[in-house]
């Protein structure tokens, strides 16, 4: 239509990057890195997810309104996870009030 068609090369490059990152994340999970195992796995997952959203779902060429909606969705997801975690992780930090 009005959009210029994306060359196959771009998609093939993103595809190969996704496969390479999958192999990397499995490889890194075999190493003993302690807490960094989780951080590495999540970082790679976020990169992979962003590649799919940006190139495959074509958000990079979508309207500003669509981009705003995508950002809002991620922002609300961040609110959900942050507030749930701040509750559970801070439990027991304070003593019970005397009237409890």
């Amino acid at each position: 239509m009005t959009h210029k068609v994306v060359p196959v090369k771009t998609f093939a490059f993103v595809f190969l990057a996704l496969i390479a990152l999958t192999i990397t994340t499995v490889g890194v999970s075999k190493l003993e890195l302690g807490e960094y195992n989780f951080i590495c796995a999540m970082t790679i997952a976020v990169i992979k997810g962003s590649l799919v959203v940006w190139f495959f779902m074509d958000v990079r060429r979508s309207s500003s309104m669509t981009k705003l909606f995508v950002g809002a969705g991620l922002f609300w997801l961040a609110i959900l996870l942050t507030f749930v975690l701040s509750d559970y992780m801070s439990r027991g930090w304070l003593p019970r009030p005397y009237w409890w």
Partner: protein
Amino acid sequence: MADTEATLHEHPPELKHHFDDSEQQLESSTLGMWVFLLTEIMFFGGMFGGYTVYRNLYPDAFASTSHFMNVTLGGLNTGVLICSSFTMVLAVRSAQLGKKKALITFLVLTLILGTVFLVIKYLEYHEKWVDHHIPGPGFRYAEPQFFHQAQILFFLYFAMTGMHAIHMIVGAGLLTTLIVMASRDKFNAEWYTPVEMIGLYWHFVDIVWIFLFPLLYLIGHTS
């Protein structure tokens, strides 16, 4: 007068009269689809939130369960889904170029890869069934101190991968519809909106798996 009438009604047959042009119509569809996907983010977000809470409460139990996850099959499935996303973008691209034959070929390939994913998922579920790793009265676990906590993880595993698999089955149905529509010449280079929208859905389901795979299969794998 007659001249104005004629120009007023001169538009592509797929363009609905309440849109200015095809571009605006496609933009509206894309935005609407994204609003639907936002509700899906919230839906899966709730389950990811539940997973996060329980993983923080019982980190040792969750680490022990990842030894019983089949990383080979999970990794293979990740590859299969990424391939299916690749064939899906190529299908959308063929639709943009108005190549009917290529469009149908790529849609069929996507459908086949989606089915391969579900078959591998079935093999994994079967393995869990044989190992008594399904939460409930028949549950057995090698490390008795984690008996109760491990069931929470396996429950989350089945809830999250099960919801994902249901989305895959719905996606397979949508792909079948697209294949039928494409073979009946419903799409052309000017109008292929359903292909693009179902493409967005398919990629979204792929992204959910991209996060499920490390969380359920890889974390705590070494300890």
